[in-house]
């Protein structure tokens, strides 16, 4: 049978993190009582006029720069006209032919090598207003629908990718990387439950047939409410389209672009009825808003404000600190606070590997268990750095590090204090040699065993030795005993 490639482009809407709406000063706070966050402007009342929120524009510009987009000198806003009860002006203020950014990209990687690293091209990212919410009657639309306009006018950034994605895994990685980037530069919380990140997918297939490659009609998939749902929807949709092609043989152009909704319960996509007239949006420049001119300086400033992006951090951690790609992304995925914590521990202890191990293995686990933020964590970066230093200069024997860590955690004390309270001090070599000699004298059979090659017999002595001096390093104790035992044999 023919094999096919799945061609996926994603259209993502993210709510920008502003206090007030895009064109009025109503709050954007999620979860308020219906219709308590509206005013003449976002109600679209006669006579009301929009004025653009500076922070929303700055966030959008910042994101465009972070996505390596081209930023034009001139951009404007247009009216996208359609009727829906949650759209009180009967048009959405959006951007049509001169969006504020275009032609960018986002790089995606998979440490587990499920796919090759790739650069996903971004077609455009533009700033627009959100619509309100229609609460439909579950019972198959028998009762009235309720309209809540609290969300109306919330600033959205629409980010459209080129059809560069080839699998659900790549699509999920793209969404995860996008979310990481947007939260990292703090332009959105990307909270999907609260709808601050929404995804639509455009999917079709390229099928190799005896008479060459053919493309199937494009289908837009909506209502995917989690990254998991996106994955499942795409995994369902591709084979479905293949079956349809086998039945109908329809190629792109044979059928109009179809819209299908993802039914998460049933795990299927379902066709949605769309009237042909609804596609004529009659875009034209909004005469109530003025264009925006973007200067080179503004773009440079936006770039400065970004700081180091997740991708840069990951590669630096690998190159500069020798972390594995996996560890690097584990840390970077935690966000600024953990990244800064890790960097400080590394700086002050001079030991990135240990810093990474403590953070990724112990600390992240503990934070989860006690649901704490790194800021609330009892062992501050300087304390952990001091502890790691103590281990490395021998003041804290590795085997007892965990005890010290526990103590620091429970008492919030610095490393030195923990070491003291545990009565840990260096055992000097001569004292240790004395101890070994005396133990061997008391246990001639062990000496005999060692001489007959049963080195492990020394193990039996470690327990007793530890009772006499808890600070001894078992490994060193073994070495010395072995030495002495051999000497005593050769001296005969």
């Amino acid at each position, binding site marked *: 049978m023919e094999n096919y490639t799945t061609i996926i482009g994603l259209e993502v809407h993210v709510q920008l993190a*502003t*206090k*007030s709406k895009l064109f009025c*000063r*109503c*709050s954007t706070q999620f979860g308020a*009582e*219906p*219709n*308590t*966050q*509206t*005013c*003449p402007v976002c*109600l679209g*009342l006669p006579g009301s006029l929009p*004025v*653009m*929120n*500076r*922070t*929303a*524009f700055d966030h959008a510009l910042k994101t465009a720069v972070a996505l390596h987009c081209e930023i034009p000198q001139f951009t*404007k806003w247009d009216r996208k006209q359609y*009727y829906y*009860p949650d759209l009180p002006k009967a048009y959405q203020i959006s951007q049509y032919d001169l969006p504020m950014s275009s032609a960018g990209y986002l790089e995606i990687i998979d440490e587990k090598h499920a796919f090759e690293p790739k650069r996903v091209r971004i077609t455009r990212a533009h700033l627009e207003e959100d619509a309100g919410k*229609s*609460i*439909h*009657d579950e019972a*198959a*639309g*028998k*009762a*009235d*629908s*309720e*309209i*809540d*306009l609290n969300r109306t006018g919330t600033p959205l950034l629409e980010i459209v990718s080129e059809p560069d994605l080839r699998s659900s895994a790549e699509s999920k990685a793209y969404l995860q990387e996008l979310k990481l980037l947007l939260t990292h530069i703090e332009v959105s919380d990307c909270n999907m439950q609260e709808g601050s990140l929404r995804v639509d997918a455009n999917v079709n297939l390229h099928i190799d047939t005896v008479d060459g490659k053919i493309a199937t009609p494009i289908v837009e998939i909506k209502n995917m409410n989690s990254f998991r749902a996106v994955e499942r929807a795409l995994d369902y949709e591709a084979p479905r389209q293949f079956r349809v092609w086998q039945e109908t043989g329809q190629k792109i152009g044979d059928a109009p672009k179809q819209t299908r909704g993802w039914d998460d319960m049933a795990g299927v996509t379902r066709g949605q009825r769309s009237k042909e*007239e609804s596609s*004529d949006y*009659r875009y034209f*420049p909004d*005469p109530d*808003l*003025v*264009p*925006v*001119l973007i200067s080179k300086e503004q773009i440079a400033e936006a770039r400065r404000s970004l700081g180091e992006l997740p991708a840069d951090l990951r590669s630096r951690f690998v190159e500069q600190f020798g972390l594995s790609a996996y560890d690097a992304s584990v840390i970077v995925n935690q966000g600024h606070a953990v990244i800064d914590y890790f960097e400080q521990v590394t700086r002050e202890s001079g030991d990135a590997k240990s810093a990474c191990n403590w953070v990724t293995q112990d600390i992240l686990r503990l934070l989860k268990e006690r649901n704490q933020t790194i800021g609330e964590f009892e062992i501050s970066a300087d304390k952990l750095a001091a502890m790691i230093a103590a281990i490395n200069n021998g003041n804290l024997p590795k085997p007892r590090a965990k005890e010290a860590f526990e103590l620091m955690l429970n008492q919030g004390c610095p490393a030195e204090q923990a070491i003291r309270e545990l009565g840990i001090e260096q055992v000097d070599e001569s004292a240790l040699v004395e101890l070994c000699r005396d133990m061997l004298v008391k246990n001639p059979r062990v000496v005999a065993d060692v001489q007959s090659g049963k080195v492990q017999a020394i193990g039996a002595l470690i327990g007793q030795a530890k009772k006499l001096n808890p600070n001894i390093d078992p490994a060193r104790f073994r070495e010395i005993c072995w030495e002495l035992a051999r000497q005593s044999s050769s001296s005969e």
Partner: protein
Amino acid sequence: MAITRSDVEKVSLLARLQLSDAELDRLTVELAQIVEYVAHLSEVPTEGIEPMAHAVEVHNVFVVDEVLPSLPREAALANAPRHNERAFLVPPVLG
């Protein structure tokens, strides 16, 4: 581009206007007249002329991102043809 009755019907759906046959007939004639008149614009050479969407050309008008009080819900719903004290009501949007 003479305007036909079926054009007028299509446009009336886009414009969400329910027009009687008489209205459709009359509008087909009137719009045709007006469109014929405005079509004279095609005589004007305009290559390279920047479109003028605003009467005065101002740029970069912004306001600071601060929350100001919204309307009380009663006021927001006061002009609604139908509401239930919390939301605007419309006939079932589904089905």
